[in-house]
């Protein structure tokens, strides 16, 4: 019989249980649930029946079967995804994230840790602190866990040898110290017998500390947050009729009272709290964790993703950050690729501008890395399209933790934490140059710009680029042609055809093109550039109007038939991998400045249309520079 619960729930402790494969995590949770009477008898009967069939404990009840929920893992005897379980004692209500021990499921471990107050780190007494233990502890710390306790499991298998336990405890303290966790406790337990989990056994008379459950019931995990300045990200603007406009959200930090002055970030407008609404009632005050609707007077413009904050200590906003990432996607992170960043209730376009290093989580070493792959942890520079209100993650999980979404697949590609803002625009000023792009281009009596030809291999890009280059040169223009194939002999000689190398290839070519435009040249780029995000990235480097995207369009069939270099034939035979149009996609431009259909138009006609467009829409200046002076 479970005891009836108290009328109001006791305070909740959220913890994540981490450890290596076979350390017995699920058994520990199963035991806690069982001993706290959170298992109904019919569920236990089912588990007893299953124990005989799939159990790993012989005839004894396999408590792990209480928590290993999915059919596949019940049959394989492993945990493949993070599971959440609740139980309560009169003192505390617990929400446990059972995180899997396999290396390839680091992302689930990170997810489990992200909302936890504390980590219970489990090791096998026979094996001690393993690289995997360090890995999980480090991930937990990176995702905001400040408190940890070590449970040395399977003590029964080492005959409760005190020396074994002490050696592990020393290693643990060294690890926790290095990671700067507030962790001192280590507890010898046996999940199999239940000793020191919920009751002190007689097996280890030398241990006089608390049981794991007693520790969890009493450990103080109150972090900072309650006494910080007020912050509330706006989730929803409630506007049922013209007389009411409320801002809904959950208070992320501090507290707010009716009459308080607030400032909206990032806009910077100020107002006062007119009322705090919860359901049909109103309140004088709301604090961290409360979900409320605020009305403001005077009414100012506030939208979803804004942060309402204490007017005396408003929320910072920035568009450049140093951040830590755990990569969660099969596709590796490529510098310059566009992602959607979601931070509290705000979504914004973002790109990683630089990978500073990858972290080896088993020893804490920082390694140089061109890419981040699935389950890698790294530190990067991140740029967002617009300033976003935030707080460093160390101050606030709610305002400093984010995810990156891959817009092509909609997958959650990464979870990240803001370390600090990079005020690059403020700190690193552009050296002001007296001779500007305009001056240089007027001297050449032309409009400097980048004509970017994109299209599949053999669509006609190089032919058109070459003809255009000749035509403009004959007219006395100053031009340069950057050809995709040619740059690979020099500028991009060190790059291959992996995803990361392709992105770097584009980045270099776009950057060189931009410098040449700055020098006053008309730059023609002939580049397959199959991905929309890459072309958008290139466009973003130029001033509006300086980048003309030309889609050289021909069907795959036509290109494969032309095949002047025999590449399609090879790709179709499988001799070349990642070939655009064959086994790698070409994302057609949605809104090119000009589309040239080379199945209908001759190269000469294409160039005609192109020069018409340039002359009409981007006329060259006719007057010399001196008029300005």
């Amino acid at each position, binding site marked *: 019989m479970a005891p*009836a619960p108290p009328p109001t*729930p006791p305070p909740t402790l959220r913890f994540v249980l981490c450890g290596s494969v076979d350390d017995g995590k699920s058994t520990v949770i199963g035991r806690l649930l069982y001993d706290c009477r959170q298992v109904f008898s019919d569920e236990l009967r089912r588990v007893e029946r299953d124990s005989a069939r799939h159990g790993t404990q012989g005839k004894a009840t396999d408590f792990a079967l209480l928590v290993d*929920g*999915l*059919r596949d893992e019940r049959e394989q005897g492993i945990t493949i995804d993070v*599971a*959440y379980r609740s139980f309560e004692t009169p003192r505390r209500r617990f929400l446990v994230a059972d995180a899997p021990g396999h290396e390839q499921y680091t992302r689930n471990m990170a997810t489990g840790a992200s*909302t936890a107050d504390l980590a219970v780190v489990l090791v096998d007494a026979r094996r001690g602190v393993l690289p995997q233990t360090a890995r999980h502890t480090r991930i937990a710390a990176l995702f905001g866990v400040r408190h940890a306790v070590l449970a040395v499991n399977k003590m029964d298998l080492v005959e409760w040898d005190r020396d074994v336990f002490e050696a592990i405890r020393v290693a643990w303290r060294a690890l926790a110290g290095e990671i700067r966790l507030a962790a001192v406790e280590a507890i010898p337990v046996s999940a199999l017998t239940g000793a020191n989990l919920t009751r002190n056994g007689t097996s280890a008379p030398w241990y006089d500390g608390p049981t794991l459950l007693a520790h969890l019931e009493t450990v103080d995990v109150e972090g900072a947050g309650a006494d910080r300045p007020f912050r509330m990200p706006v989730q929803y603007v409630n506007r049922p009729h013209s007389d009411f406009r409320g801002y809904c959200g959950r208070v992320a930090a501090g507290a707010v009272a009716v009459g308080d002055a607030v400032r909206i970030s990032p806009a910077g407008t100020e107002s006062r709290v007119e009322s705090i609404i919860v359901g049909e009632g109103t309140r004088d005050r709301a604090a961290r964790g409360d979900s409320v609707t605020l009305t403001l007077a005077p009414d100012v413009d506030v939208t979803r993703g804004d942060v309402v904050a204490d007017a005396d200590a408003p929320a910072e906003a920035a568009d450049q950050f140093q951040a830590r990432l755990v990569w969660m996607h099969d596709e590796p992170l490529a510098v310059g690729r566009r992602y959607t960043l979601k931070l509290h209730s705000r979504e914004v376009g973002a790109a990683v501008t630089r990978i500073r290093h990858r972290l080896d989580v088993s020893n804490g070493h920082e390694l140089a890395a061109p890419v981040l792959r699935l389950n890698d942890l790294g530190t990067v520079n991140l740029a967002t399209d617009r300033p976003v209100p935030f707080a460093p993650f160390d101050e606030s999980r709610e305002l400093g933790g984010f995810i990156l979404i891959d817009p092509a697949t909609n997958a959650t590609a990464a*979870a990240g934490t803001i370390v600090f803002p990079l005020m690059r625009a403020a700190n690193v000023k552009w050296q002001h140059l007296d001779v500007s792009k305009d001056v240089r281009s007027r001297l050449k009596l032309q409009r400097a710009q980048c004509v970017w030809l994109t299209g599949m291999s053999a669509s006609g890009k190089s032919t058109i680029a070459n003809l255009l280059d000749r035509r403009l040169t004959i007219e006395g223009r100053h031009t340069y042609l950057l050809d995709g194939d040619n740059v690979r002999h020099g500028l991009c000689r060190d790059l291959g055809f992996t995803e990361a190398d392709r992105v770097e290839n584009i980045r270099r070519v776009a950057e060189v093109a931009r410098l040449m435009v700055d020098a006053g040249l008309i730059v023609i780029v002939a580049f397959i550039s199959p991905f929309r995000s890459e072309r958008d990235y290139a466009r973003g480097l130029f001033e509006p109007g300086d980048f003309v995207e030309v889609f050289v369009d021909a069907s795959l069939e036509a290109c494969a038939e032309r095949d002047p270099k025999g590449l399609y034939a090879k790709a179709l035979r499988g001799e070349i991998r990642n070939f655009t149009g064959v086994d790698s996609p070409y994302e057609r431009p949605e809104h090119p400045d000009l589309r040239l259909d080379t199945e209908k138009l001759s190269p000469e006609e294409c160039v005609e249309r192109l020069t018409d467009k340039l002359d009409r829409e981007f006329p060259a200046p006719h007057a010399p520079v001196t008029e300005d002076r």
Partner: protein
Amino acid sequence: MLYSIGKDSSVLLHLARKAFWPAAPPFPLLHIDTTWKFREMIAFRDRAAAEAGVELRVHTNEDGLREGVNPFDHGSERYTDVMKTVALRQALDEGGYDIIFVGARRDEEKSRAKERVFSLRDAAHQWDPKAQRPEPWNLYNTRLAPGESLRVSPLSNWTEADVWRYIRAEEIPIVPLYYAAERSVVERDGRWIMVDDDRMPLLPGEEPQRRRIRFRTVGCYPLTAAVESDADTLDAVIAETLAADRSEREGRLIDHDRDGSMEVKKKQGYF
């Protein structure tokens, strides 16, 4: 919002009303009516929707109805598939909903413990446990490809005790079937089944009798077992429910059809 009329649905609707007040929740309620629900449930449903000021959409699998699919002649597994799983898919396809709120909790069943708060479903409404989106810091990725949808379970981390405590604290109305009263029942396979209307065929030897009973869970009356009880107040119900040594779903017969049955049903598009 998928509205099943049970206590969890009552809590979910209450939360939505609180969140959006003074506006009404900006989404309709969807009820999958198998036509075998308790009559008291239907009356309660219509009242709750009217009070909340939200549109109520009721869907029944008309094909199943025409074929006369019922829990007696077709067995609970086939009946559930046709009148609940298929009916739900029909209603969701018809509505083209991108987000469906449901009252599921992780403590109800083991496979649910591993399901995300925002659970991605493909165009066939199926759940792929190995392709779940991580949800760090409760940040939810709501991007959808055409045809995909999300089942959102705001009560994921609530326990049964939390639900009852909240019902008491907020004085949330629940279907009277949760309270003990004298009702007409027959004993079948060791379980009390209520005779809610005259469509229920009685087996030889079965004689409806008046018993003081209540329900721990409410659904289709022929598939929902009652318990004998005197608990006719909220406090008594809570004390009895939470002191019980049977899992909440024991009274729901469909979960016992097959081992791992919820996971199989969920992969098929049931909850």
